[in-house]
């Protein structure tokens, strides 16, 4: 599973740092490098764009894995250039950005939007598989998540817009419920869907506020 990111429009990036003249750039060597959104090449391209836009880039680095605690040491090595900047423009995913912010007093701005946690289905094709809702139903749905794969997160699908195996919301998206039915049929357990899935407890999901688990030693 990796974080899937997309570059924000450059105008939006410029707007977020409009008060700042001197910028320090951070990329990430893991997810955003894989997706060509925040690796070395993209950081250097951003440097050039910022300079063209009249900003001064005090320095840059690509942290191997920005969401790792080692980010603290990586930032420490570059203290001088970071301190010379008004703010940090960050090109890891949100997890990396949050980690960077833990270890610096400088304002940190995201240059990317973190869209979802997903996997690379085929080369260059990143798809979402799980929204981490805290109430897994994969056992009932032939390991295809209806909450993630169905545009309406139906628990008792498919809706009336499932046509030729595709979702009505996007004809390029497979209907998650068609996939569920196909797999359950192949496994000879389609009759499991005769049961009405009860209402979901969303308190384990985002609705409950930030989630935290503390392991007992």
């Amino acid at each position, binding site marked *: 599973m990796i974080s899937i990111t997309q570059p924000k429009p450059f105008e939006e990036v410029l707007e977020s740092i409009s008060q700042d003249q001197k910028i320090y750039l951070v990329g990430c060597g893991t997810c955003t490098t894989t997706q060509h959104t925040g690796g070395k090449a993209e950081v250097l391209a951003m440097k050039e764009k910022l300079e063209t836009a009249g900003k001064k880039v005090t320095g840059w680095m690509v942290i191997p894995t920005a969401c790792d605690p080692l980010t603290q040491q990586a930032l420490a090595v570059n203290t001088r250039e970071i301190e010379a900047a008004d703010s940090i423009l960050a090109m890891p995913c949100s997890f990396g950005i949050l980690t960077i912010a833990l270890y610096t007093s400088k304002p940190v701005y995201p240059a990317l939007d973190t869209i979802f946690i997903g996997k690379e289905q085929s080369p260059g094709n990143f798809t979402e598989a799980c929204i981490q809702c805290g109430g897994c139903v994969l056992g009932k749905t032939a390991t295809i998540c209806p909450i993630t794969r169905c*545009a*309406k*997160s*139906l*628990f*008792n*699908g*498919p*809706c*009336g*817009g*499932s*046509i*030729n*195996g595709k979702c*009505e*919301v996007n004809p390029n998206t497979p*209907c998650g419920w*068609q996939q569920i*039915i196909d797999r359950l049929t192949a496994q000879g357990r*389609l009759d499991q*869907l*005769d049961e*009405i*899935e*009860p*209402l*979901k407890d*969303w308190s384990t999901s985002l609705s409950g506020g930030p989630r935290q688990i503390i392991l007992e030693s």
Partner: protein
Amino acid sequence: MKAGTNLEKVLTSGQFAVTAEAGPPKGTSARVVQQKAEILRPYCDAVNITDNQTAVVRMSSLAGCVLLKQQDVEPVMQMVTRDRNRIALQSDVLGAIALGINNILCLTGDHQGFGNHPAAKGVFDMDSIQLIRVLKNMRDEKKFICGEDISGEVPLFIGAVENPFADPFEFRVNRLAKKIKAGADFIQTQAVYDLVRFTKWMEMVTDRGLDKQVHILAGVLPIKAAGMARYMRDSVPGINVPQSITSRLEDAKNAKEEGLKITLEIIEHIRTLPGVHGIHIMAVGWEEIIPDIVSKAGLLPRPVSGKVPE
């Protein structure tokens, strides 16, 4: 009787029911709903008020239903789970009953991406089948989802929809069975044009005896122009418009007349099918044709409310 509504009386007495759909305005005019009520009153047993259909903001279904009632037209309140969570949905059910609205149709709703606020957050706290079960539990157990008691009576006649033209075809009947199991009293289907497929679907329904457990009203959507037929075929997910219908409308001297003729033929066929208990006319923006459809289909007079043979 579960709710004693006119629609329930007509259906349980075994008469062929006629319902229609009225879309509320994209504005504040009560007159728009009142005018539709005036047109439809003698021709329907109940009228659905849609709930922000196609995810376009309109006057609320609850308000539209109250306006219908004031015009002596029995409302069916449509309720989608797209925009409201379980707190708001249950609250609106209580309010509807307090206002004398007892037919409620449960839907998940068109995805917000199709509407005029595509950036809206889709709620989808539950789906339509779960909403049906919630309503049944409110009525039969007088309980909220949380298990607490509801004060007062909860008379409800619970409706649901089904689309025999969506995929996977075989599973559409399973899904109907799930809606019945959840507590649906009546079903209004997606618009029927493809009679072959609809006939097949009804056979599967009657083979399983589902028509004995729920009242099925077949959806009818009159088409007034060839362009409209093509649009529905190409752009409305889950509607099959056979080429023969498009061609007839294209070749017709008077497309509206031809559209009416096609609609009447569809109704005639539907009425021959065992297990169909009525029709639901969705004359989107063409409500004035409904009197013609109902009278020419020989479905007049409608049973007078309260005077239906028990």
